[in-house]
């Protein structure tokens, strides 16, 4: 899971997709993901339509395909699993290029690959077109508990700080000739984690004091009111709407 996290996830821009209020986009992506997951795996036409829809969104948001593909590296572990399923799966076997593969396993692998890929691509596009802070505010508008949103905001803000702290400790370790090669080196890494915890916690206490001195009373002041017009909701709704139409169309064909 560490593969995709070092990239910048947000691509600033000024397209209609970027300008949509975050809560609309979040709701649209969630509805889209639900539609994808609910689609029976035999309806290939529907999956093709979903992929085209996402390509259309990427085009409208001017997100290059290479960016999306690189960010999709997080999916790799489950791709490996999906590729293994036809070999270890049960049920009727078919011979493909001299290999005995499980037919239900092939279906399941296709199912996982198609749905996971579409879901990941939709999430990547959402993160690419929405500032992290705004995304969390949008989640709050969608009735996620405010405390949870605040915690997530602190986390998002301090992620780079903590990661930087960790990186400096790693540089210090390596400057002294350390390289984690086998199990015997685990205690060194673990002591670094302990030191990192103490530093994080103490930083948290300092931040809390600083917040108190600026009048913090347990909830963050709302600076920007996120309101979405009906037109914006309608625009955001075109993605899940079109997906639903594709689903119904495939149903009519099936």
């Amino acid at each position, binding site marked *: *899971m560490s593969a995709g996290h070092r990239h910048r996830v947000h691509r600033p821009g000024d397209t209609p997709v970027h300008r949509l209020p975050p809560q609309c986009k979040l709701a649209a992506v*969630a509805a889209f993901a639900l539609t994808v997951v609910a689609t029976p795996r035999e309806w290939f036409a529907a999956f093709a339509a979903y992929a085209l829809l996402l390509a259309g969104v990427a085009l409208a948001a001017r997100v290059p395909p290479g960016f999306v593909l690189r960010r999709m590296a997080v999916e790799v572990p489950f791709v490996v699993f999906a590729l293994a399923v036809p070999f270890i799966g049960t049920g009727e076997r078919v011979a493909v290029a001299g290999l005995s593969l499980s037919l239900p396993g092939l279906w399941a692998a296709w199912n996982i690959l198609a749905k996971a890929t579409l879901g*990941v691509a939709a999430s990547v596009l959402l993160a690419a077109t929405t500032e992290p802070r705004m995304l969390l505010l949008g989640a709050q508008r969608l009735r996620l508990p405010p405390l949870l949103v605040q915690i997530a905001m602190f986390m*998002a803000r301090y992620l780079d700080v903590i990661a930087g702290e960790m990186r400096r400790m790693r540089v210090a370790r390596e400057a002294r000739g350390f390289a984690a090669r086998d199990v015997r080196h685990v205690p060194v890494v673990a002591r*670094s*984690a*302990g030191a990192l915890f*103490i530093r994080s916690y103490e930083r*948290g206490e300092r931040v*809390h004091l600083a917040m108190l001195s600026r009048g913090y009373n347990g909830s963050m002041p709302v600076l920007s009111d996120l309101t979405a017009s009906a037109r914006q909701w309608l625009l955001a709704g075109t993605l899940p709407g079109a997906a639903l139409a594709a689903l119904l169309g495939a149903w009519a064909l099936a």
Partner: protein
Amino acid sequence: MHVPDGFFNAAVSVSAAAVAAAGVAVCLRGARRELDDRTAPMVGLVAAFVFAVQMLNFPVAAGTSGHLLGGALAAILVGPYAAVLCMAVVLLVQGFFFADGGLTALGVNITLMGLVTVVTGWGVFRLVTRVARGRAALTAASFAAALVSVPASALTFTLLFWIGGTAPVEIGTVAAAMGGVHVLIGIGEGLITAVTVGTVLAARPDLVYGARGLAAPLVLRGADGERTVVPAAPARDASPRPARPFLLAGTALTLVLAGAVSFFASGNPDGLERVAEDEGFIGQAGDHALGSWSLADYGEVGGVPVGVAGVIGVVITLAVSGAVAYAARRRRAAAPGGARGTGEAGGAADGVTDGAADGITA
């Protein structure tokens, strides 16, 4: 182990989301009771810590490496409530920003990697520390807690896979593969957790939530040999409102949701079950090399799903909710000593608690 979209069927996803929501709601209340207005900055920073620690790869065996899940570690360091919130937020941020774990699978991910690891980890930790005391026992308990929490999470994954996985792999194969790998990862997790907790105990024992109540009282010795035992600072136990009605309501709601959804789902066999029936592959069980785990049983799940899937869903929900509720009650009953001073009290309070906590019974 972040589960993507489409890996579990809708029923399991929705049930797990209900369990996760109930668990997070309970923990939000618990954390606010303990941490007050410090909740957001402290839990947020610890969440960032967990996120960073998950990037620490450690070598498991030749060539392979694992990374921490961090659930048990967070539970021991900041307590179960804050730990569940940390894990939930970490998974939320990973799902939202990094597309790591599907949006529809968020409930599954929070249940597996947040609730299960924290609840089992904390349970094992309390069990061991109740039997034995002292710093060595704390380290051993940390090791055991982390060691158990990872395979527990993997086995819960297997159970969910059995109920509503979308791939036709025998449950025995999945259990063996997941269990085997995760016992190894669990050993690594246990080692790192134990040493990490030990490091923090050595430097700032007052920060280790799991070591609260183990601190020796502060004893002042006067010049004339007079000994005064300073009582521990009163615990921050502000909320007189009992959480029980809330817990009961949450559990009931979860049960209803999970039960209803399981039954609804089992009325519509998913693709695998349909294929199982259509293809009639039950008869081929003997042909397959891995066919020891009877395929008939698998078909059975597809064939008589109303009873089995529903009951299992309800039982799991009950177990998870019950464990969360029990943990919540336990925390309330045990008044933690040596609470950290509030921000206003500043350095003086820090000095006192540090001094007291340094005398942890060794």
